[in-house]
């Protein structure tokens, strides 16, 4: 095999930049929309127990629009590099994006306005998009024999995704065909737990094992305990979902406690990685990541409090907020603010041409502003939900929206800086 051919093979694992970037760009916009909806309908937030409305749309803009979109873009980009196997089809990746985007817009409209037709149509499109994503990822994972800790958690995440798609389909069908489910709310809660902890949470755990050592330049994490944490978390999600669906409180609590143990083990593994790191100054992104790590077990504690009946009108909505906007969104924003300029720099590599510097692609001030506003928003909205005071929720959502806009400015800076760098470099031929 010629050297050039081999290198082309190696590079072909890196998808064209436009594929991951479209997912990230959509995530940035849905981030703004989610905070915007929470601001607009903050009055409904205290005591929110689910059901159709703009708050449900806001929640799904975070889970599907920001978390799933970013997870898809990052998985399509990073997994083939880590597993040394290319994604089966670039067209399928693009199709998954457009299906997801169209589905999510229709779903958000249907949820917000209680309109069953766009709700059903959007639900079907999102299910197809995520099923396509699951197929592409499992196809890539299937032949990987090493990297057990990453592949274990990615497999559990894919199992969680299929489970959540089944539950979501049932919920949408229940709205569309006139309420055949005996307990819609219980199934909706189980769907939320499976989606947040079983799919997105597991994906976050899997990415942590690749990205955290890479960002802080540390040796690979403890595989044995990492795998243990993954399987414990998977079992915890199953128990919690079973407890919710069958109204078995002891099973639900057992699931919560097992989830706490799994998160403690995962954090212990991550703490060991951080301790052995080579890069000492980790920047603002790790402020968010560390905060998210703290919010992960806190979300379970608040969820357990709600399950045990401690002021459920306050702890119930607080659980959903700490879980989705707290642990998952904060973690993802920390990762995204680091990975976006890094991936852009990676894609600027050309033979004989210097890549764009990560530091030049990073907009420090908007990112710092976003970090401050995001943390303030979490604290203020949480206080509003705990105190059942809508004006405080509104104020917090306003801070979150400003933070999201600031984040969008930093993302745009990456795009413009990369474009400028590529245009300034002379065209070069392969050596």
């Amino acid at each position, binding site marked *: 095999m010629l050297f050039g051919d081999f290198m082309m093979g190696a590079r072909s*694992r890196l998808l064209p930049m436009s594929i991951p970037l479209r997912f990230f760009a959509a995530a940035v916009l849905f981030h703004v929309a989610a905070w915007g909806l929470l601001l607009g309908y903050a009055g409904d937030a205290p005591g929110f127990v689910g059901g159709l409305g703009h708050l449900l749309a806001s929640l799904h803009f975070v889970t599907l629009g920001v978390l799933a979109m970013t997870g898809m873009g990052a998985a399509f980009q990073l997994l083939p590099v880590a597993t*040394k196997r290319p994604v089966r089809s670039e067209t399928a990746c693009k199709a998954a994006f457009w299906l997801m985007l169209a589905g999510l817009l229709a779903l958000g409209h249907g949820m917000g306005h209680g309109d069953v037709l766009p709700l059903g149509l959007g639900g079907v499109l999102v299910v197809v998009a995520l099923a396509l994503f699951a197929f592409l990822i499992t196809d890539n994972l299937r032949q990987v024999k090493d*990297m057990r800790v990453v592949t274990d958690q990615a497999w559990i995440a894919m199992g969680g995704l299929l489970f959540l798609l089944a539950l979501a389909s049932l919920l949408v069908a229940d709205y569309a065909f006139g309420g055949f489910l005996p307990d819609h709310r219980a199934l909706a809660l189980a769907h939320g737990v499976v989606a947040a902890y079983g799919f997105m949470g597991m994906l976050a755990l899997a990415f942590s094992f690749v990205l955290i*050592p890479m960002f802080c330049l540390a040796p690979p994490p403890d595989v044995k305990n990492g795998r243990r944490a993954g399987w414990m978390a998977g079992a915890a999600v199953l128990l919690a979902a079973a407890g919710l669906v069958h109204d078995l409180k002891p099973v639900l609590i057992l699931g919560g406690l097992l989830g706490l143990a799994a998160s403690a083990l995962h954090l212990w593994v991550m703490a060991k990685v951080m301790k052995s790191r080579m890069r000492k100054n980790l920047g603002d992104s790790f402020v968010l990541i560390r905060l998210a790590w703290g919010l992960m077990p806190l979300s379970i504690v608040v969820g357990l409090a709600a399950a045990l009946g401690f002021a459920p009108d306050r702890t119930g909505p607080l659980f959903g907020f700490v879980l989705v906007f707290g642990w998952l969104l904060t973690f993802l924003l920390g990762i995204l603010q680091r990975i976006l300029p890094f991936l852009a720099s990676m894609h600027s590599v050309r033979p004989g041409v210097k890549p764009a510097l990560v530091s030049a692609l990073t907009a420090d001030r908007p990112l710092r502003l976003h970090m401050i506003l995001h943390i303030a928003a979490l604290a203020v909205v949480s206080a509003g939900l705990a105190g059942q005071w809508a004006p405080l929720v509104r104020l917090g959502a306003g801070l979150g929206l400003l933070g999201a806009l600031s984040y969008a400015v930093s993302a745009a800076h990456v795009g413009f800086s990369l474009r400028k760098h590529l245009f300034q470099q002379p065209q070069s031929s392969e050596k």
Partner: protein
Amino acid sequence: MSEILLSLDLRPILASGTDPLTWVVQDAGRLPSGGRMELLAPFNPLPLRRVLGQMGFSSQAGKQNDGSWRVLLTRDGKGLVETAPGPDDCAGLPAGAPVWLDGEVRHIDVRGLAMPLPMLAILRLVGSLAGDETVIVHHDRDPVFLYPELAEIGWSLEPCGSGAEGELLFTVRRG
């Protein structure tokens, strides 16, 4: 303890610039379960030991009085690689990625290392160099994550060739 069924001296092969990986793997593959073999090398051949570890060989390495390394391998199905880096085995580098000088050029072999150890080993080596040295990296993949990291500290990475069994060579230099 069973007798050593196979003894391979890799020093003349490595001195001639040939990668002995394919040859060793083929010979080792013929050993029965429980069989033992020894390797003699100018450095601790960790990437090779890891490859053989995936074939079920546990290995122990020790430095000889003449400066060479003797590796004892047993096909016990466990694939344990006991690592005890010595001064010639790039002490201080994670997982002991071998580093050696070939004339004026420094080489580092990061094949077989789990992510992100290759990146760590290369960044540490580059960080320890005082002048404008050139380093040849022996890798088993295109290290796409390494380009931005090196660029940020004023170094660059460029492909410069390929070897047997999917080995890729890269030049790392300042600027």
